[in-house]
């Protein structure tokens, strides 16, 4: 029997996952697996680093090297891994809270350094593991356990944040479009530089329930209305994009040198002195 890609990349003894029925994490995980497989990376040379949160648990199921770190810190740990051995393919799985709140500083500095990491931000608009509190990406007026009168904090746009801080590959995908999601993760892995993929996902049992978004299939269906591909978005007036989520590749640039390459140059310079 032909080996399935999941057989190569999952640890069957660690399944089933701890995620709720209808959660988007599984779709993101399969997209990461397919992207890694298509990238041709040797699984022995792949290190997946995660922080704390529901999506970060993905690293427990992957048959690669895994580094399940502290809340908010995976990019900082991954930076050390990559610098110690630049030949490794290093993928970070992080959540919206992990990455843009408690880990916000590490995130923007990773972008600024342009170190060759692929950061998949599994963005489900709330803190799921702790029971559904609002996060830095929770939309205004959305209901969460700590915004029971509607969220009153303006949200971050993960892609704008990454682009502004200097990431050289920035894209958004959705669990509703798993092939497109896999493709942007694959492009991120192939890109030599700091890659950020904002993976829009659904938290059905908390965010969905608190905002009366229906069951999992209904929640997913809403992306048909809400999600606009970048090429189309560019043709639309701003008012037509109100409340929409634009997906696609926002930044793909080779203009800046990658950090480990830059540091190799520092070593050369130091050794010449």
């Amino acid at each position: 029997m032909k080996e399935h890609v999941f057989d190569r990349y999952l640890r069957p003894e660690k399944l089933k996952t701890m995620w709720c029925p209808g959660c988007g994490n599984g779709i993101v995980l399969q997209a990461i697996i397919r992207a890694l497989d298509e990238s041709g990376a040797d699984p022995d040379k792949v290190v997946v680093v995660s922080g704390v949160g529901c999506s970060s648990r993905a690293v427990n199921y992957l048959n690669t090297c895994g580094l399940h770190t502290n809340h908010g810190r995976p990019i900082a740990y991954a930076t050390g891994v990559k610098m110690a051995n630049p030949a490794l393919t290093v993928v970070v799985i992080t959540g919206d809270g992990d990455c843009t709140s408690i880990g916000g500083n590490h995130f923007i500095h990773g972008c600024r350094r342009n170190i060759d990491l692929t950061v998949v931000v599994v963005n489900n608009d709330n803190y799921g593991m702790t029971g559904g509190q609002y996060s830095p990406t929770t939309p205004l007026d959305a209901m969460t356990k700590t915004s029971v009168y509607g969220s009153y904090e303006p949200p971050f746009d993960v892609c704008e944040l990454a682009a502004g801080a200097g990431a050289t590959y920035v894209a958004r995908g959705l669990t509703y479009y798993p092939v497109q999601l896999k493709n942007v993760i694959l492009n991120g892995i192939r890109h030599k530089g700091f890659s950020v993929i904002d993976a829009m996902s659904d938290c059905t049992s908390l965010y969905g329930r608190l905002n009366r978004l229906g069951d999992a299939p209904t929640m997913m269906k809403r992306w048909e209305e809400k999600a606009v591909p970048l090429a189309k978005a560019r043709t639309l007036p701003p008012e037509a994009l109100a409340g929409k989520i634009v997906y696609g590749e926002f930044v793909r640039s080779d203009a800046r040198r990658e950090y480990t390459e830059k540091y190799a140059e520092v070593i050369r310079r130091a050794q010449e002195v």
Partner: protein
Amino acid sequence: MQGDRILTGNEACTLGALAAGMNFFAGYPITPATEIAELSSELLPKRGGTYMQMEDELASIAAVIGASTAGAKAMTATSGPGFSLMQENLSYGMIAEIPCVLIDVMRQGPCQGVATVPAQGDFMQSRWGTHGDHPVIVLVPNSVSEAYTETIRAFNLSEAYRTPVIVLSDATLAHMSEKVRIPDVSELTIVNRKKPTCDPKDYLPFSNENHQIAPMASFGDGYRWFVSGIVHDDTGFPVTNRPEAIRDSLDHLLGKLRDHLADIESYEEYRAEDAEILILSAGLVSRSAKSAIDRARARGVRVGLFRPVTLWPFPEARFSALCARAKTVMTVEMNGGQLAEVAAKYVDRDQTLRPVTQNDGTIIRAETIFDAILEVC
């Protein structure tokens, strides 16, 4: 490089680390530890190593631990405020059993305190600063020479026992220069972590049988192992629902040091054998105690020093043996009396405990200690 050199404490820590094989440093500038970062940034790339200036201290120790999982011998250096920030990820290194070295150059006071003057306020933070309960190895040099040799030993212990090791320096030791004998490389004992040789499918990165230290693969070596900050079994994967597995995992952290105390502990005794007054002191200030002891001995006072170089685990067997013979136990320390709290455990009701503490950013003078000795003898 070898031969006598005049070095500052910070230079000695850096050169000691390099001699031990440090090839990765990540840090964040902070007085009075900055020169360790500066010198590392200059010397590491010359040897093909990596210096990284991180965005904060959280990231510094995180990158150090990350680099170590990929095979690097990694170090960071900081002072009180940064040491506080590092506690979170330090605890990761402890539970995940990742070797690395952290130098804390102690400065005065809580919060920003006084950045430029020495203190010994972090003795207890180095022991209990992280959450949860785990043992820790902390080394306290009292000279620039020891800053060199103890930094090497810190790397060796961290590699041998797969654990972060802390070196406590202070603002004066960091910036003062003394003569250091730099040995030839062939004279140095350098310990490197044991690597697995088994078939990857049989590899147990956290096996803890008899508190032996499991071999540690580097990411990319062909062993697809998993590292977690969650309590784990010998495979590294979480076990959070079996009390006996939780116990075994945490017991191992204690046991792996407890079963090797003879190798880990080091201390100095100075005229302590027959001491009726036993002084407990660590770090630079212990040298003032020696001067005071010489003066008091000249007057016939039987006083001596016990100086833990390994502050934690505290070398209690020898200390308590010396304590048992003393009438008075005196601590000499630059804080509010943290060693006195340690000593209290070993002092009986018929013995006196006399802390000599000074918390003003200056090194306690021999005269102060001498006067205290005369008061109690």
